[in-house]
């Protein structure tokens, strides 16, 4: 059975009409993963047994007429989500044998809605990376070109959807980790407003920035996945208690009369010419759809990478202090006492990029440097948020590129961490400001690589952002192209 060209909604219809069972669909999905994952390396763990059990239960629900939003639909999640009795490695050697003793709230929600979780997806270690290359199990490959990275850190989440292994996935986005790989793989990825989705049970990287987000093959499926996971969670005190709209309800509302801002700081000289062409064409499409396009300014954009990396690294150094070889994770012990055990465990368990960030974060928080680095970065963050606040007084949405270049070649930037950080320039500011943003396919480069368009919405205005994305998708057909594997 071929399911790769079906959307979630189409799968649901076939399941409800009994044209298809969830067990059949899940089997086909598992076969597709097995047939393609040597090429892609998108999965860290495949949950065949668990998935087939869940699929059989879903079929009973469907037969009884009790189908929910995702009943019987096979999905996969980044290996950063705790999933009961299944390994959660976070792409790290230090968690290689860690088996989750509980479900993340988002996983509970997916299960309650009947989703079938088929596996855990590859990622940069502890979500630190822009290429997928910092994974302990090796890089996931871009479905469009095996010599290129899929983007990161949610590398597997984007590659798996683009390659038709699963119809939708969950990732996490701290500085662009859902949007940038979605852009590089030609799929739809959304970073909700900070506080929109619970992070309980999601391994923490930088707590003031991390947010869970869906990846799917089209805007409607992305909206459906967001509806499934959004909402306040008493177990996450940073989640926000405001009502969750039905993101599917007014998807066709269009953009006529909407004001879309182009922040001039995002249309820089260094922008890849193919990206410029694709984004300019997208702007023209929006104009034809009746949107009013205006130039705006986010004056502190150029400081966002510096502010972001200081904050993210400082928070990471604190969050990752828990990997000490005592309560979970591997232990390396030379019988030389506790401190030595900590050092050996952490040095053997973490990869280079994670160590670098822990080192930088520890330095930025250390006595004598705190004010100069961490506090300074937090103050600049206020300026960046004020930029967005001011701009959203003038426009409904912002439109920008997602990344300055299409997917780069594997190994191109591994020796130059700073250069890699700078590639996150267009996605980072929204994490600092806390607003929502998404990536949708808007074209291909001369070399046939996907290009993503970023829409940035006001805080908690995901519905409006999705409507604009849907209008673009209906007017174009970029999301219909699929890679040949």
């Amino acid at each position, binding site marked *: 059975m071929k399911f790769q060209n079906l959307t979630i909604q189409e799968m649901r219809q076939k399941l409800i009409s009994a044209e298809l069972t969830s067990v059949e669909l899940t089997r086909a999905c598992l076969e597709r993963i097995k047939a393609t994952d040597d090429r892609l390396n998108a999965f860290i763990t495949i949950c065949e047994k668990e998935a087939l059990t869940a699929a059989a239960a879903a079929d009973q629900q469907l037969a009884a007429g009790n189908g929910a939003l995702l009943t019987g639909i096979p999905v996969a999640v980044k290996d950063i989500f705790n999933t009961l009795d299944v390994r959660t490695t976070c792409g790290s050697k230090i968690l290689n044998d*860690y*088996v989750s*003793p*509980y479900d993340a709230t988002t996983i509970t929600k997916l299960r309650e809605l009947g989703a079938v979780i088929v596996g855990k997806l590859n990622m940069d270690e502890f979500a630190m990376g822009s290429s997928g290359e910092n994974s302990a199990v090796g890089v996931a490959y871009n479905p469009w070109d095996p010599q290129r990275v899929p983007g990161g850190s949610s590398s597997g989440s984007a590659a798996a959807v683009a390659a038709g292994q699963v119809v939708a996935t969950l990732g996490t986005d701290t500085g662009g980790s859902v949007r940038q790989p979605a852009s590089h793989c030609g799929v739809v990825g959304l970073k909700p407003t*900070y*506080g929109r989705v619970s992070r309980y049970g999601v391994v923490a990287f930088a707590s*003031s*920035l991390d947010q869970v987000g869906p990846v799917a093959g089209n805007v409607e499926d992305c909206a459906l996945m967001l509806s499934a996971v959004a909402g306040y969670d*008493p177990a996450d*005190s*940073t989640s*926000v208690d405001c009502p969750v709209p039905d993101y599917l309800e007014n998807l066709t509302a269009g953009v006529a009369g909407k004001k879309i801002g182009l922040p001039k700081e995002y249309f820089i000289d260094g922008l890849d010419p193919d990206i410029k062409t694709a984004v300019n064409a997208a702007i023209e499409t929006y104009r034809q759809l009746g949107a009013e396009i205006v130039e705006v300014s986010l004056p*502190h954009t*150029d*400081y966002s*990478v*510096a502010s972001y*990396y*200081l904050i993210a690294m400082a928070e990471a*150094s604190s969050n990752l*202090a828990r990997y*000490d*070889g*005592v*309560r*979970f*994770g591997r*232990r390396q*012990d030379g*019988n030389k*006492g*506790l401190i*030595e*055990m*900590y*050092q050996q465990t*952490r*040095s053997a368990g973490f990869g280079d990029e994670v*160590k*670098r960030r822990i*080192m*930088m974060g*520890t*330095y930025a928080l*250390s006595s004598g440097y705190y004010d100069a*680095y961490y506090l*300074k*970065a*937090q*103050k*600049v*963050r*206020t*300026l960046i*948020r004020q930029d967005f606040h001011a701009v959203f007084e003038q426009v409904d949405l912002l439109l920008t590129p997602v990344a300055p270049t299409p997917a780069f070649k594997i190994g191109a930037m591994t020796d130059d*961490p*700073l250069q890699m*950080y700078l590639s996150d320039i267009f996605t980072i500011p929204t*994490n600092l400001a*806390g607003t929502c943003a998404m990536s949708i396919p808007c074209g291909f480069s001369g070399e046939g690589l996907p290009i993503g368009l970023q829409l940035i919405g006001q805080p908690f205005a995901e519905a409006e952002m999705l409507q604009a994305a849907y209008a673009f998708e209906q007017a174009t057909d970029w999301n219909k192209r699929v890679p040949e594997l």
Partner: protein
Amino acid sequence: MKISQKDVEHVARLARLTIAAEELETLTGQMDAILGYVDKLNELDTEAIEPMAHAVPMANAFRADEVKPAMGIERALQNAPVSGDECFTVPKVIE
């Protein structure tokens, strides 16, 4: 140089990491480049600006202090590298 190899060794001790001798020079160079780059924040006058710790401004999130079911000792210990007597076991701390 904004940071010396000696500084890097000191930070490594604070972070409970050991940096191999052959990695020290590369890491120091990379950290120096990053610190050089983030220096650009000093172009901005932030004297009167409040620092921002969270994307959503919120005060303390209080909840009622109620007893609720927890995951249980067996579950909590299932991933411990070494455990015994319902406790995590650690290397000897005091000689």
